[in-house]
């Protein structure tokens, strides 16, 4: 569990981060969203003390990060950044093994861990182990960057715009894979992004930052349906609101008994996918794999904030 208490960073008399407090539960994903200059990256970098706070505390499982030497603290926390930051003069294996080596793992243990992670990120160890970073595609580099951040089995992973340099198709897959891997490993994840879509897709909770202050910290549905300030509402985007709301719920959750024609959609597909399928095929309802249907009426109800508020 990560507790951030009254964290403040002042640069030349201006607060880049202003009295921010928030808690991220173990195994959860918190997405820090905001425009550039909102202080989200500074907040993230104060957690592993790449930036020293002016005031305030960060507690990891109750332990104050100020009591740990910065380089030792950072070896316990995974860190992945935009554009990956892989060492260009080290092979993929050596890049991934960086932190385990710093921690004094045995070479065989490092090798085994590297192969395990490459498998996890769907990169064939035999083919990729000895490649140099510049020989990889952008998506592969990004995966190696995240694998490197996870190498020493950190309980906490910090990511700063990790998918920022990827094209949209690869980005969607990378987000999906990250979510799966995070669930599988139970890692607590704090992610900085300027993309509300990404925050909604990945975050268990979304922290919206504006001019250094935390203006809202809530589950995605609440940020979408009850934005705390006009700034949050603008960030969500009025035109996108209903679709983002629908994207939060899997089709299986609202499927009810009934008959509908056409090919079924997967159980894990979101209501947004279901809506798209209805609109595109001109149907009023689509079947869900494994039984049940999702109707347009149900979708309409789910897409309206009032329906949620009543829950």
């Amino acid at each position, binding site marked *: 569990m990560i507790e951030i208490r009254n964290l403040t960073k002042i640069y030349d008399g201006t607060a880049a981060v202003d009295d921010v407090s928030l808690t991220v539960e173990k195994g959860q994903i918190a997405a820090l969203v905001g425009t550039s200059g909102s202080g989200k990256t500074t907040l993230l970098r104060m957690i*592993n003390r*790449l930036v020293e706070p002016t005031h305030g505390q960060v507690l990891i499982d109750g332990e104050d990060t100020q009591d740990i030497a*910065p*380089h*030792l*603290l*950072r*070896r*316990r926390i995974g*860190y992945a*950044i*935009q*554009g*990956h*930051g*892989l*060492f*260009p*003069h080290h092979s993929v294996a050596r890049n991934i093994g*960086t*932190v385990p080596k*710093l921690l004094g793992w045995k070479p065989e243990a490092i090798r085994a861990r590297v192969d395990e992670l490459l498998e996890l990120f769907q990169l064939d160890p035999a083919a990729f182990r000895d490649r*140099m*970073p*510049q020989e990889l595609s952008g998506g592969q580099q990004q995966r190696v*960057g995240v694998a*490197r*951040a996870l190498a020493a089995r950190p309980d906490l992973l*910090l990511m700063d715009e990790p998918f920022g340099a990827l094209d949209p198709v690869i980005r969607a897959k990378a987000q999906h894979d990250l979510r799966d891997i995070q669930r599988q490993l139970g890692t607590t994840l704090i992610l900085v992004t300027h993309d509300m879509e990404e925050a909604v897709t990945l975050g268990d909770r979304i922290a919206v930052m504006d001019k250094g202050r935390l203006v809202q910290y809530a589950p995605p549905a609440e940020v979408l349906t009850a934005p705390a300030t006009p700034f949050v509402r603008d960030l969500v985007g009025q035109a996108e609101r209903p679709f983002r709301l629908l994207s939060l719920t899997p089709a299986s959750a609202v499927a009810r008994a009934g008959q509908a024609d056409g090919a079924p959609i997967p159980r894990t597909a979101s209501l947004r996918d279901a809506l798209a399928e209805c609109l595109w095929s001109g149907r009023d309802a689509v079947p869900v794999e494994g039984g049940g249907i999702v109707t347009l009426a149900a979708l309409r109800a789910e897409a309206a904030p009032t329906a949620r508020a009543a829950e």
Partner: protein
Amino acid sequence: MTGRLLLAAALLFLLAFLASPHSFAGLFQPLIRPNQPAIYTQTPLWSLTLSHLTLVALAVSASTLVALILAVLVTRPAGREFLPLARTITAVGQTLPPVAVLALAVPVMGFGAGPTLVALFLYGLLPVFENALAGLTRQPAQVAEAARGMGLTARQRLWQVDLPLALPVILTGMRLTAVISLGTATIGSTVAARTLGEVIIAGLLSSNTAFVLQGGMVVGIIAILIHQTFQTLERMAARRIGLG
């Protein structure tokens, strides 16, 4: 490929010439006046070449070592304020004409190799320093951020990241210093350092163009070979870090 062949040919020619200069006397015959010797024989050419190269190697190693240490120090947070000072020192070293350094050093150190070493050392600081500085400061920001974020200590970052990534640029600085020193070392013979300058000076004093050409030719060929060797090393180092 042709370049490599030419280089190999130049190297073979140089070795052959140094091993048996008299076999090449015919080549220099047209340049001399009657009764002048075509080949310098006071000291064997190979021995002058060796001591010339030793002198240059010593001077380049010393300036590289000092310039690297300076560059590392002024790029650490604690040493940043010494950057202007270090720049001034290395720039002055480059500004002082080596001849003037020789003249100043002889009264203190006496004749011989010492003053030449000092002159070459001072002259060679700037290229290595400026290149190392550029190499150490123009690293990709993300790589530096990742290194810090993963918990490498300052020292680990220097040895494992900064220096390996700066290596190609540092080698470029060493190449400049080596080639400059190789040519400049010849004037050391004016203060009795044993260098190939001895042959050139003897030629100038006795109006023997053949001597001047011999000395100049050996220095020139070695300069080209060293230049090429360093360029090859630079390319290898650049490839290792994913450039070129």
